[in-house]
């Protein structure tokens, strides 16, 4: 039973990270119907920025809590800036061209960003500092859940709630929903569609950066390639829940995390990534619209 709980909570924290990244995919897809391949790289850049900032700050001699807050903040700002710039360079000039072009451009961007970090920083794994403090009161349960796992689950839950509030009740949220439904119509009623798209990229990238900081402290090491696998898995999560749907991305992330956790715990740990891909293929065959997605008929 304890083993089961451990796997369950481990899967939950893993799934939360997937969900955080998946939100970026789903939001972008919901609005411009593009798989933003470079999203995984944005998350990687977030993790690297946090690493660099915390390194500099601890060198100067800040205390642990302020390092955590500042590093996360800077990581979120930089990831958002990268997301914004990527959209302006690689996707915006391609609006209105065939479906394949932005996708290929996105893959190119992803390769470019990976190698940019590889060349500017390092090709090796670098140890990530322990940013998240140990919670004393969690110690009796330490065999089931670590402090980092706990922090991941709580932070993700809070971020989700904030995001839902943003989309439901603010003006920009309303504009986003309008743009997702019908871009031309939204433009006609006075929504600045370009700004909404930029905003979507900024928010999605910021969420990815939070995911990057959390996973960095969870795994303890990062390299330039972490964005690739995480990106595919997060995309799997988004498809699983129904791409374009925000609660779907969360649900998909959690399902994927749990599947992987139980799969590696009870079957074999060699095939961790295979479980995710198999799940993706199965979902696409039997329920391509995802768990919470609505099936849409293609119009002529």
């Amino acid at each position, binding site marked *: 039973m304890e083993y089961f709980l451990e796997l369950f909570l481990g899967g939950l924290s893993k799934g939360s990270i997937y969900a955080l990244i998946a939100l970026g995919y789903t939001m972008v897809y919901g609005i411009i119907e593009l798989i933003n391949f470079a999203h995984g790289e944005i998350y990687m850049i977030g993790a690297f920025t946090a690493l660099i900032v915390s*390194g500099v700050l601890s060198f100067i001699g800040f205390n642990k809590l302020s390092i955590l807050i500042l590093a996360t903040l800077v990581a979120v700002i930089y990831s958002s800036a990268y997301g914004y710039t990527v959209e302006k360079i690689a996707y915006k000039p391609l609006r209105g061209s065939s479906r394949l072009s932005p996708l290929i451009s996105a893959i190119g961007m992803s390769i470019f960003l990976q190698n940019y970090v590889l060349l*500017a920083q390092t090709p090796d794994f670098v140890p990530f500092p322990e940013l998240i403090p140990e919670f004393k009161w969690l110690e009796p349960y330490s065999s089931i859940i670590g402090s980092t796992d706990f922090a991941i689950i709580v932070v993700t839950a809070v971020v989700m709630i904030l995001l839902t509030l943003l989309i439901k009740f603010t003006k920009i949220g309303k504009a986003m929903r309008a743009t997702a439904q019908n871009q031309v119509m939204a433009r006609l009623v006075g929504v600045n569609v370009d700004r909404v798209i930029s905003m979507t990229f900024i928010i999605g990238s910021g969420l990815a950066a939070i995911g990057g900081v959390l996973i960095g402290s969870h795994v303890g090491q990062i390299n330039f390639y972490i964005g690739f696998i995480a990106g595919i898995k997060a995309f799997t999560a988004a498809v699983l829940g129904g791409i374009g749907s925000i609660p779907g991305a969360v649900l998909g992330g959690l399902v994927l995390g749990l599947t992987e956790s139980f799969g590696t715990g009870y079957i074999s740990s060699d095939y961790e990534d295979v479980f995710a891909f198999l799940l993706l293929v199965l979902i*696409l065959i039997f329920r*391509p619209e995802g768990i919470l997605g609505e099936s849409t008929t293609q119009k002529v």
Partner: protein
Amino acid sequence: MIRELKKSLVVSLWFMFLTFPIMVIKVDTLQRTIIWRWKNLFLVGIGSFFLSIVWRYLIERKTKKAKQKELGLEGASFVSKVITNPRYSRPLYLAFFIFILAFPFLFSTYQTNIMISALIYVMLGLGLNIVVGIAGLLDLGYVAFYAVGAYSYALLNYHFHIGFWTALPIGGFLAALFGIVLGFPVLRLRGDYLAIVTLGFGEIIRLILENWDSFSFGPSGISNIPRPSFFGMELGVKGATIYIYYLIVVMALITIFVVNRLQNSRLGRAWLALREDEIACQAMGIDKTKTKLTAFALGAMWAGFGGVVFAAKTTFISPACFTFLESAIILSIVVLGGMGSIVGVVLAALVMILLPEYLRAFSNYRMLIFGASMVLMMVFRPEGLIPSVRRKYEYNPAENQS
């Protein structure tokens, strides 16, 4: 003018801000030292200032061209004029062909080896060109079929001592079979889902090869794969290299011939039609599933052939040869060459594989340039280096009057 400069200044400041932590600061967490590289900041500032001017100029030119096209003022470019006119293109092709034939006698074995891998990529590029360029199905796991071909030769040879010539069709067939098996479930999906599923498939194949030790010998790979024998004669390393060279030249020629014939066949035009508009295509009575599956199977088959030749050439394969990076390289060959254009793909494959070999100093930047050129290509020249020319039938009243 001043406004333009101001704009560029803003862009360069933005990029200096953007690249600041990653380009300038390098933290060594183990030794607790920080390296500041201010020179990079300066370079980024200068570079982005000039690039932004070029960028805006190119965007402006592109919109101007699009406008001209709308008005019907567009003239054919110089390159496409040369290619479509047989009077100029034939001698060009002939000269190139003679150069290729004479290559192993003009250059060393080392150079010939590089040329062999470039020609393998020509085959792979043309194979993927069927799937991506002509049929418009974005396949990001193409390397999986390449791996199937290579491993089928290696394993068949290891267990049953099957020679190269028997393994070649088997490898192609197995890869085609995998193509159908993968294609069947995913064909209902729209383009972008297809991309991700094929990517996942490519990774699954690689992970299985890496982890299933008793079947594929795991990450250590398979070594001592024999080179092809020449009518039962064993050739030395040099002889075998030249032999494989001519083999791959012939195979590349066959590939070019087949793809060319396919493109203008009924099936090829069905692929083109599917790429342009699926619904209209089905309304015209084209069997969507069958057409797409043949594209997948044929594309995969060439990858299988390529894989067998690759295994025979290097005599050693391991799962590390078949990463996503390979798929990305093959895809960028197709994209750079011009989707659907045979001449373009051949040229792009030679450029992309040979250039990094001879520019060793830049080899670190190879993937960076690949990525950047994919983006730039899509933004400024989505039709590729040499755009494919679709066969047109024109009615010429002057000829019919007599």
